[in-house]
C-alpha cells in the first residue's frame, strides 16, 4: 500500500510541477531580455540561409562573441531559398546565400513586405570535377563533355567513358553528384547543363546532399566521376584527382580570378531596416566585413577569398548602403562582370 501511496505522490507531484512550469513559462515571455549596457553590443540577430555560407557567418558570430558576449546571434543553414523566404518576411536580419537573390520570384516578396536589402559578396567557392585517384586516362574535361555526361538525355545512354571522348577506354562510367535540394546542383545545372527545365541527369546518378558521401563514393570507385565543393576536394587530395576544366586546373587562384569555369560568389544579404532598428546588426556587419576579419573568416571556412579590389567594392556597397541586386533575371551580373556591376550600382 505504501508503494501505491508513493507512486500516487510522484504522479501528483509531477503533474503539479508540470503545471507550475508551464505557467511560469507562459508568464516569462519577453521579460528576459534585460542586462547589457557598457560598451559591448547587445541585441538579437538571426542569420538564416545557405549551409555553404553558414561556416563563414558562424566564424563571424564566434569572433564577435568574444568582444560582445551580450549579443545573441543565431546562425542557421536551412538553405538559400528557405533563407530568402524568411528574410523577405522580415523574420531574419541577415541572409546567407550561395546564389544571388531571384529577381523574378524573391525580390518581389521582399518589396511587398518593405524589406530593402544590401547585397554583399564575401567569398568565392569553386566546384571541382573529380575522378578516382587510380584513373590514369582522364586529366581534363571540357564543358561540352560534362554536358554530354550530365544532361537528362544521357540517362541510360552515355554509360561508357569512350562515349564521352573517343580516346577514353570502353569502361563503364559511374556518376556521383549532389542532391536536387543542393545549391551546388542548381549552380552546376545552370553553368553546365543549361537547359530550360533546369534539371540534370538523375536516375542513374549516385546522389547525396552530403558532399563527404560523394567523396567516399568517388574515392572507392575506379570508374567514378563526380562533382562537389572545392574544399572537399582540397581536404581529400590523396584519394581523388581533380580534372582541369577547359584546360584550367581548379585552384584558389583560378577560382578567385574566375578563369576556372565553375567558380561562384557567396553572399550575405543585410536588411536595411534591421541596420536602422536593431542596434546589434550594424556593429556585427562592420565587424564581419572589416579588412582584418573578412579574409580570416573566409579562410577559416575553407573558401577562396575575394581579390582585394572586389572586397573593396563589397565594403563600398555596404558603406554606401546601396540597396538592390546587381544581378539580372538569369542570375548573371549586369554587364557580365561582378566587380564592374558593383561599381556601377554605387
Amino acid at each position, binding site marked *: 500500500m*505504501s*508503494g*501505491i501511496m*508513493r*507512486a*500516487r505522490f*510522484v*504522479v501528483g507531484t*509531477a*503533474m503539479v*510541477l*508540470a503545471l507550475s*512550469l*508551464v505557467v511560469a*513559462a*507562459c508568464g*516569462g*515571455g*519577453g521579460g*528576459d531580455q534585460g542586462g547589457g549596457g557598457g560598451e559591448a553590443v547587445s541585441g538579437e540577430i*538571426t542569420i538564416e540561409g545557405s*549551409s555553404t555560407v*553558414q*561556416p563563414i557567418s*558562424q*566564424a563571424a*558570430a*564566434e*569572433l*564577435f*562573441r568574444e568582444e560582445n*558576449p551580450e*549579443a*545573441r*546571434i*543565431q*546562425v*542557421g*543553414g*536551412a538553405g538559400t531559398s528557405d533563407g530568402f523566404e524568411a528574410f523577405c518576411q522580415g*523574420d531574419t536580419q541577415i541572409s546567407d546565400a550561395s546564389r544571388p537573390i531571384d529577381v523574378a520570384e524573391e525580390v518581389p516578396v521582399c518589396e511587398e513586405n518593405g524589406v530593402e536589402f544590401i547585397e554583399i559578396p564575401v567569398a568565392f567557392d569553386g566546384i571541382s570535377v573529380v575522378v578516382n585517384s587510380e584513373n590514369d586516362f582522364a586529366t581534363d574535361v571540357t564543358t561540352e563533355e560534362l554536358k554530354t555526361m550530365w544532361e537528362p538525355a544521357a540517362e541510360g545512354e552515355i554509360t561508357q567513358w569512350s562515349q564521352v571522348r573517343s580516346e577514353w577506354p570502353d569502361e563503364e562510367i559511374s556518376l556521383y553528384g549532389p542532391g536536387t535540394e543542393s545549391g551546388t546542383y542548381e549552380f552546376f545545372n545552370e553553368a553546365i547543363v543549361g537547359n530550360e527545365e533546369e534539371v540534370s541527369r538523375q536516375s542513374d546518378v549516385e546522389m547525396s*546532399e*552530403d*558532399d*563527404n558521401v560523394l567523396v567516399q563514393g568517388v574515392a572507392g570507385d575506379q570508374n567514378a566521376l563526380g562533382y562537389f*565543393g572545392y*574544399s*572537399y576536394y*582540397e*581536404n*581529400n587530395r590523396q584519394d581523388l584527382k581533380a580534372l582541369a576544366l577547359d584546360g584550367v586546373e581548379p585552384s584558389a587562384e583560378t577560382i578567385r580570378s574566375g578563369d576556372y569555369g565553375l567558380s561562384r560568389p557567396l553572399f550575405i544579404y543585410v536588411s536595411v531596416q534591421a541596420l536602422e532598428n536593431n542596434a546589434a546588426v550594424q556593429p556585427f556587419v562592420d565587424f564581419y566585413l572589416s579588412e582584418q576579419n573578412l579574409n*580570416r*573568416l573566409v579562410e*577559416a*571556412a*575553407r573558401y577562396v577569398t575575394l581579390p582585394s579590389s572586389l572586397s573593396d567594392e563589397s565594403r563600398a556597397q555596404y558603406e554606401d548602403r546601396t540597396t538592390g541586386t546587381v544581378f539580372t533575371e538569369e542570375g548573371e551580373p549586369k554587364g557580365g562582370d561582378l566587380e564592374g556591376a558593383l561599381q556601377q550600382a554605387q
Partner: protein
Amino acid sequence: MAQTSKQVERQEGGARGSEFKTSMATRYGFDRAFSILVTVAALVGVAVLAVLLIDVIGDGSGRLSLGFLTSFPSQIFPENSGIYPALIGSLWLLALTAIISVPLGLGAAVYLEEYAADTRINRMIEINISNLAGVPSVIYGLLGLGIFVQLLAPLTGGASVLTGALTLSLLILPVLIVTTREALRSIPRSIREGGYALGATRWEVIWSHLLPMALPGALTGMILALSRAIGEAAPILVVGAAAYQTYTTAGPFDGYMALPTQIYDWISRPQDVFQELAAAGIVVIMAVLLVANSVAIVLRNRFQQRS
C-alpha cells in the same frame, strides 16, 4: 454417424500419438538448438551496438574531454570545439518534452481506456493514434513549422526551444498513449470492480489504484519515447534548431541548438577534425541517453517491487 465420429476420434488420437517423440536425445537437441537461436537473436542487437560504440569511441576519443563538454563549437579553432550549447539545448528539449507529453499521454490513455464508450468516433480516434505512431518524423517537423512556429508564433516565440519540445511531444504522444493503454488494460477487471463495490468513484479508482499500478508499464513507454525524441534531428531541423548560436538556452523562448543537429552539422564538413568532433558528439548523446534511461529504469523497478 456415431461410428464415423468414433473413427475420426481414433484417427486424431492416432495422429497425436505419432507426434509424440520418444527419442529423448532429439528432443533435448531441439531444446538446446532453440535456446542458442534465441540467445543469438538477443546478442545481434548488443553486438551491433558494441561495434558502433567501439568505432565511434575510437574516432572521437581524442576529442573527448571536460573542455569538449564545456566549450562552444568553433569554426576558427575547430580543435577547441565543444558541444556545450547543444548539450544544454538537448537537456531543455528533453525536460520540456517530458513536461508536455507525459500529462497529455497519460490523460489520453486514461480517457481511451477507462472513459471512452465503444463508439465509432472513439474507434476512429484509436485507429488514428496507432497510425500516427508510424508517420515519418520529418512530417511532424513540417506540422510543427506550420502550427507552432508560424501560426502560434506570439505564444511560442517562433523558432524557440518550446516550439521544438512541442513538436517532439507530438511525435512521441502516440507511442506514450499506446504503451500506457496496454499497461492499464493489463490491470485485472476485479481491481476496478472492487473499488466500485466499496463506493469509490471512477476518479478515485483511477487515482488510487489504476494509475499507480500502470506506472511501471507507462514508464517503459516514456523511456522509449523520450529516447527517440532526444535522438531526432529531422523534425527540429525543420522547426529551426540553430546550427550555431553565441549564447546558451536559458528559457523556453530562447533559440536552441541540439546534439543530433550539431552532429549532423559536423559530419557534413570537409575537414577531418570535424569528423572526430562528430564522433565525440555521438559518444556524448549516447551517454545522455544511457543516464536518462538508467534513471527511468531504476524508478520503474522501484514501483514494480512495491505495488
